[in-house]
């Protein structure tokens, strides 16, 4: 995890320094909102330490970043960390229901599909999940808006007012992950159903329902948990397209605004935050293996792999 975080800091620092243009001049024109004279540029360059070697600047920047100081946004002139912290709750309000909805759809669909392998429910599920995985989220969002907001006037077109404004963005966000997780659950379930311990359980005379619930499902869900963790972390990092369409004040919208305004301190902030989120959620998933997978708990990792 440490090399990943270090690399992440290289990327974030590098992005702003690769950008064309003089950072001192950019800072002046963006933050003070006035054309800068050559003297002022020199003064700011010295003040911000931009005249020092890049390596020194990097170490300095990293030190500040570790203390939670990511500089000031060019666009809002407020600290980047404050802006990000302000947006996280809005993104979570969509990400968590969407992730749960995806699970609620995907796991039963995947299990039923595996149990009815090659029969009608399986075919329906496979067509639906393939279609779901191929749907562009921006198109789905607009279709949902057209149907439910414009034609039926059931929910607002965009914005965040009242509970019903959560419906369309949550649904849009959930569908893609649901489709992929359902396919994945199906294949791990089929694998588990073919395993020795399932045969043993059946031979012992356990009912089919008990075998599925206690033995097959439990083991089939272990790899699914990893995939779910990745998808959850992507949702938490901010859904740029969906938040933009629904004008949702979360991290995704913040990211796109930072990109269109070339607000580099903010871009550095969202890149660091996104990478950190993925790394942390992966860590939590790895640790939770000890809870759901007995093989890891006993410490025979070779068997589990």
């Amino acid at each position: 995890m440490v090399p990943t975080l270090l690399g992440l800091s290289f990327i974030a620092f590098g992005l702003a320094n690769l950008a064309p243009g003089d950072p001192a001049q950019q800072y002046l024109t963006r933050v003070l909102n006035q054309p800068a004279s050559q003297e002022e540029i020199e003064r700011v360059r010295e003040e911000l330490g931009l005249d020092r070697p890049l390596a020194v600047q990097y170490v300095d920047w990293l030190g500040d970043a570790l203390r939670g100081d990511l500089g000031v946004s060019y666009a809002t002139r407020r600290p980047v960390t404050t802006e990000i912290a302000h947006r996280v709750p809005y993104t979570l309000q969509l990400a968590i229901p969407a992730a749960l909805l995806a699970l609620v759809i995907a796991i039963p669909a995947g299990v039923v599909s595996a149990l009815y392998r090659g029969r009608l429910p399986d075919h329906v599920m496979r067509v639906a999940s393939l279609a779901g995985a191929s749907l562009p989220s921006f198109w789905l969002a607009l279709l949902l808006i057209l149907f439910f907001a414009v034609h039926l006037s059931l929910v607002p077109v965009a914005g965040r007012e009242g509970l019903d404004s959560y419906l369309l963005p949550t649904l849009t966000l959930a569908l893609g992950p649901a489709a992929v997780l359902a396919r994945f659950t199906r294949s791990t379930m089929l694998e588990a159903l073919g395993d020795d311990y399932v045969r043993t359980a059946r031979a012992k005379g356990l009912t089919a329902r008990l075998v599925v619930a206690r033995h097959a499902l439990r083991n089939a869900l272990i790899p699914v948990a990893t995939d779910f963790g990745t998808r959850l972390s992507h949702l938490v990092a901010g859904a740029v397209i969906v938040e933009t369409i629904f004008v949702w004040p979360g991290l995704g919208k913040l990211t796109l605004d930072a990109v269109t305004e070339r607000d580099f301190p903010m871009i550095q902030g969202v890149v660091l935050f996104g990478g950190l989120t993925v790394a942390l959620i992966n860590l939590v998933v790895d640790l939770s293996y000890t809870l759901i997978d007995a093989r890891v708990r006993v410490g025979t990792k070779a068997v589990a792999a």
Partner: protein
Amino acid sequence: MTPTEAGVLVSEAGGEARTRILRRLLRDRAAVVGLVLVVLVAAAALLAPVISPHDPNAVDVANKFAPRSSEHLLGTDHLGRDMVSRLLWGARLSVGATLVATVGIGLIGLVLGMLAGWWGGFVDGLISRVIELMQALPPLLLPLAITAVLGAGLRNVLIAIVVSSWANYARIVRGAVLAERSKPYVEAARSSGASTGRIFRRHLLPNIVGPVVVMTTLELGIILLAISGLSFLGLGVQPPAAEWGAMLSEGRTYLSRAPAMMVYPGAAIFVMVLAFNLVGDGLRDFLDPRSRRA
């Protein structure tokens, strides 16, 4: 047996394998549907200049939001431009850009994956760390950040996507090379004096081609979604150019007045991605035994 005879035998075996793969692919109905769709869109893209009924950029404001007619099969947009022509030319731009990006990603992924898998040690350690790093970033975040540095536009978006998307490719290739390199046939080739380059070309490449082909087909859909998504956000192909994502973005403005402007380009992206996924799934079933659909 002379080397030439051996070469002929090998290429004949290759030809037979190809026919066998094709025959099995044709038995998978879903894959056939996907293949037909891919061929149709490819033909539309190639023939757009010939079969387009109108100039895709010809503005005719007097005729805006025209309904479907024999003159305009799918109607016209807010500037009176013919939808069919724009969709056909859009196939050229959207699918063409997808191919360019995928080739770039494939080349970088193939080279870095092979280097890491073959040499191991420090090279592998370094490449593997970078792969882990790239995979720790949420999708679209790095392409967005790079676009911010380079500025909007198709060329910059392609660079941003290639730079951010090769990691998964390299990881798969690295794994395949690692699995192959310790096998006896590689050892035999090496001990009989074959150079590293020759081992790569004649032995490793043919043996990892299965997972790479599957990966490439599935990657096409992901890349098409990324390019059209970035264009939709206003960062990629700029209007008035006819590209599916940019068209969808224009259509969003007239959502309630002319839903067709949003429905058709979105449907085009959906069908194309679905087609790539259908073919990729079908190929995976017998080219990549490790992830065989049970």
